[in-house]
């Protein structure tokens, strides 16, 4: 078993950016007065000449990134998920995605686990918003190792990418010796025949805990980690639907527009099976410690286990 690294994916992201820039002079990082929080400050320290603080002006930041990309740069524009994808949505759509420019948007402090800052900062819509834009790749890595690999893949990919970063420190569960990231490919973490859990982001580890407990109890539960929500791994989803007949999705996002919907879009046309979506049920969050909120909103192992059992009973 690999060593467990407890680290927020935003930190892993900042480290990866900085390391990748050591050998790629075209990487430019923009932030909107949140470098210390998004962890682009790590890049700033190592590569100050390629870091530009745009001030609290996300719309302009994304436009500047688009302009840099037209000249062959690989700009990464970072802010909180709420402001990057919300405030600057239309700049991302019209100035980045429509001309298919090579801009990477990084949204930190995504989801309910932003915690004490409360509803205005707990972005539960970013995946949905970004997913509706033609050509946009949407990534939501789950742990330290996956974030490092995803950041590398995002920067090597030619075209617009949205990458979701978390505030809360999370335990790693991947083994760097064997872990392989492939853009657009889901990862089957546990094989199983009776039901499939498809999770993303920090919900993957919680789902893993729930699934492993159930496996000990003799249940045959499959677990898939979807780090690339768009383009989603259709083949893997269809296979799971066909082979297990029932799916549960788990995400730290509004159930409208996120991973659950992305899975349903595939199953409804290719292999209709019941899909139960665990997420935030079309409501705003509120202030509180991240871990408590995750429990309250049912995004941790106990509730995931409970829902799996409920769904298994329906078979």
């Amino acid at each position, binding site marked *: 078993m690999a060593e467990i690294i407890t680290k927020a994916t935003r930190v892993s992201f900042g480290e990866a950016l900085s390391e990748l820039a050591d050998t790629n002079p075209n990487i*430019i990082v923009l932030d909107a007065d949140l470098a210390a929080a998004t962890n682009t400050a790590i890049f700033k320290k190592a590569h100050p000449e*390629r870091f*530009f603080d*745009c*001030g609290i*002006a996300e*719309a*302009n*930041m*994304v*436009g*500047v*990134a*688009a*302009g*840099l*990309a*037209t*000249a*062959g*740069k690989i*700009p990464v524009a970072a802010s909180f998920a709420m402001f990057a994808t919300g405030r600057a949505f*239309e*700049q991302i759509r*019209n*100035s980045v995605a*429509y*001309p*298919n420019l090579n801009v990477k948007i990084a949204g930190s402090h995504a989801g309910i686990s932003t915690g004490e800052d409360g509803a205005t900062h707990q972005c539960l819509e970013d995946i949905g918003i970004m997913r509706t834009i033609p050509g946009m790749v949407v990534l939501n890595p789950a742990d330290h190792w996956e974030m490092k690999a995803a950041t590398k893949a995002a920067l090597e990919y030619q075209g617009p990418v949205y990458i979701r970063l978390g505030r809360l420190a999370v335990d790693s569960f991947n083994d760097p010796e064997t872990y392989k990231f492939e853009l657009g490919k889901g990862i089957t973490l546990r094989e199983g025949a009776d039901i499939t859990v498809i999770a993303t982001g920090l919900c993957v580890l919680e789902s893993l805990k729930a699934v492993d407990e159930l496996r000990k109890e003799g249940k045959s539960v499959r677990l898939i980690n979807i780090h690339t929500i768009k383009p989603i791994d259709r083949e893997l989803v269809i296979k799971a639907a066909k082979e297990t007949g029932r799916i549960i999705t788990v995400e730290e996002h509004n159930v409208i527009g996120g991973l659950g919907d992305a899975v349903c879009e595939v199953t409804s046309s290719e292999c209709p099976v019941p899909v139960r979506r665990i997420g935030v049920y079309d409501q705003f969050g509120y202030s509180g410690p991240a871990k408590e909120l995750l429990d309250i909103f049912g995004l941790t192992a106990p509730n995931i286990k409970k829902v799996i059992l409920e769904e298994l009973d329906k078979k």
Partner: protein
Amino acid sequence: MNQSDKRMLEILACKARMGAIIGTFHAKSGHPGGSLSAADMFTYLYFKEMNVDPSNPQWADRDRFVLSKGHCCPSLYAVLALKGYFDWKELESLRHVGAMLQGHPDMKGTPGIDMSSGSLGQGVSAACGMALAAKLDQKDYRVYTVLGDGECEEGEVWEAAMFAGHHNLDNLTVIVDCNGLQIDGTTEEVGGVEPLDTKFEAFGLDTVIIDGHDFDQIEDALNQAKKSDKPFAIIMKTVKGKGVSFMENQVGWHGKATNAEEFKIAMAELEKQLAELEA
């Protein structure tokens, strides 16, 4: 500027105006008013000012142009056609299904378009990014962008102006086409955007106010921009619909094409102007 150069520019600008009328007539839609007010500036930029090569539109060291007021592309398209980026006949399929010339500029499909634009306020930010890229690469190309005065009601314009001033993008020239009219009325009635010169100055740009239909003043302003050690804003006073008598200063011609009869009258006026210039 010598008289023959000025005459050449006036002839080209008149043809650009014709192109804008032809394009919008065939499209049965589009924005002739602002296309006509900015036509002289577009003509000067592409025929006297910018270091570009129509046979190599992606040339890495070229000067860049961003039409932040993207809806005024009909006359820009005409100027690009005159410059040799594509065939003049393309203007007749403006806004048609499958056409190269989209209703707003599309950098992926149209040679000579350096940035897709059309959503107001966004082009000027992209121009800032281009100017920053030139600095990072230690290249001496310059970046030009044309905004509308109504467009300056967008907050992003001022975010971009602050960025340009803060990072001292002295290779950036921001040109505001002040024709005084927007869809819902005069800029004074609708948004209260003036005074623009002191606003841009406050954000750290050098500023000059000129007559945007006077090629001597355009040349002088663009030369000042090159000499300035700050980003530069040219506030150009223009007449919306310039060159077609029934469109001049008429708010209704912001976003409406001529019908067959109006088309004939407009083209006759412009042909008469052209004949006089060529005489």
